[in-house]
């Protein structure tokens, strides 16, 4: 199988280049990450992140044949050759397929991704009805791999100001949580031409999400709630 992989070593290279690799194997039921590990055995200068190798940790997000995804849960058989691998777009490249996630996490931190509740903690836990808990389905599953945010042109153009789809999905996850008491502060923080309204609903995020989540829908719900409190 043929691969073309983005290589960049800031200490040695003036600019990035694509390097070709060839592996003598049949795709079978292997995942892309398996192939990358074999390539790294050939050429140990190749850098990439990986950890859980089963789509839970979100470390090995990369741009695979033009689309962001997780190498560990992308079947080799689903990919057209030569398989082109690049780092996630829109984030500074540290080396090869490794990007600096700080701009992404900075936006994530900015939405205060934790429950804000000033009531004294109860004896056991803060209870929710099954319906209230169901509101969080499709939100809590996010693994923060950044596939969605780095596929969003609005984030490419304004990474310092636009929260991005992953951050906004999490913002809605805490707004939707009945145990959270900071709904209006959260909406105040997001009602901003840059933080929220750079989203033009093109749904690249939905297309990219390896967990099948829908940030565009969450963003729509945030806007819906703002309409409700405005009109």
């Amino acid at each position, binding site marked *: 199988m043929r691969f073309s992989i983005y290589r960049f070593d800031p200490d040695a290279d003036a600019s990035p280049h694509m390097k070709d690799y060839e592996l003598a194997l049949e795709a079978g039921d292997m995942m892309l990450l398996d192939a990358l590990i074999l390539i790294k055995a050939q050429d140990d200068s190749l850098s990439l992140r990986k950890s859980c190798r089963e789509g839970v940790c979100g470390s090995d997000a990369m741009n695979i044949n033009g689309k962001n995804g997780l190498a560990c849960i992308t079947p080799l058989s689903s990919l057209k050759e030569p398989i082109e691998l690049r780092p996630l777009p829109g984030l500074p490249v540290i080396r090869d397929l490794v990007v600096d996630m700080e701009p992404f996490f900075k936006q994530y931190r900015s939405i205060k991704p934790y429950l804000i509740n000033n009531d004294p903690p109860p004896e056991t836990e803060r209870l929710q009805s099954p319906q209230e808990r169901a509101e969080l389905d499709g939100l809590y599953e996010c693994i923060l791999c950044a596939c969605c945010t780095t596929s969003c*042109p*609005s984030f490419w*153009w*304004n990474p*310092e*100001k636009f929260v991005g789809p992953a951050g906004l999905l999490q913002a809605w996850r805490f707004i939707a949580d009945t145990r959270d008491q900071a709904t209006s502060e959260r909406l*105040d*923080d997001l*009602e*901003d*031409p*840059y*933080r*929220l*309204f*750079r989203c*033009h609903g093109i749904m690249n995020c939905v297309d990219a999400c390896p967990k099948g989540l829908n940030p565009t829908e969450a963003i729509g719900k945030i*806007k819906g709630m*703002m*309409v409700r409190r*405005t*009109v």
Partner: protein
Amino acid sequence: MVKRTVVGAHYGILGWLVQRISAAVMALFILLFLMVLLDHHPLSYDIWKTLFSQIWLRIGVQLFLIGLFLHAWVGMRDILMDYVHSTGTRLLLQVLVLVSLSAYAIWSIRIVWGN
């Protein structure tokens, strides 16, 4: 001068609503206007003149144009916010867009309501 990135203008939902509502108004008018045109087929200058002498059509056209200008303002502002990153240039371009759209709006009143 402090060069820190600042956000938190606390507006946006109104523009977003205006964009949606103006789109709906324009879509509805286009549909109705097409129906009127089909109803008066084949068109002649006299039919066109009679159509536009009616107040409801003039109001409809004017509403369509107001919707168009509002929609264009939100859209152009979005484009400038996305792509123009120098604050001074962005402000200048936004003012230019606003001034031209206002001029078009005034001109459109003359076109629709003049004889």
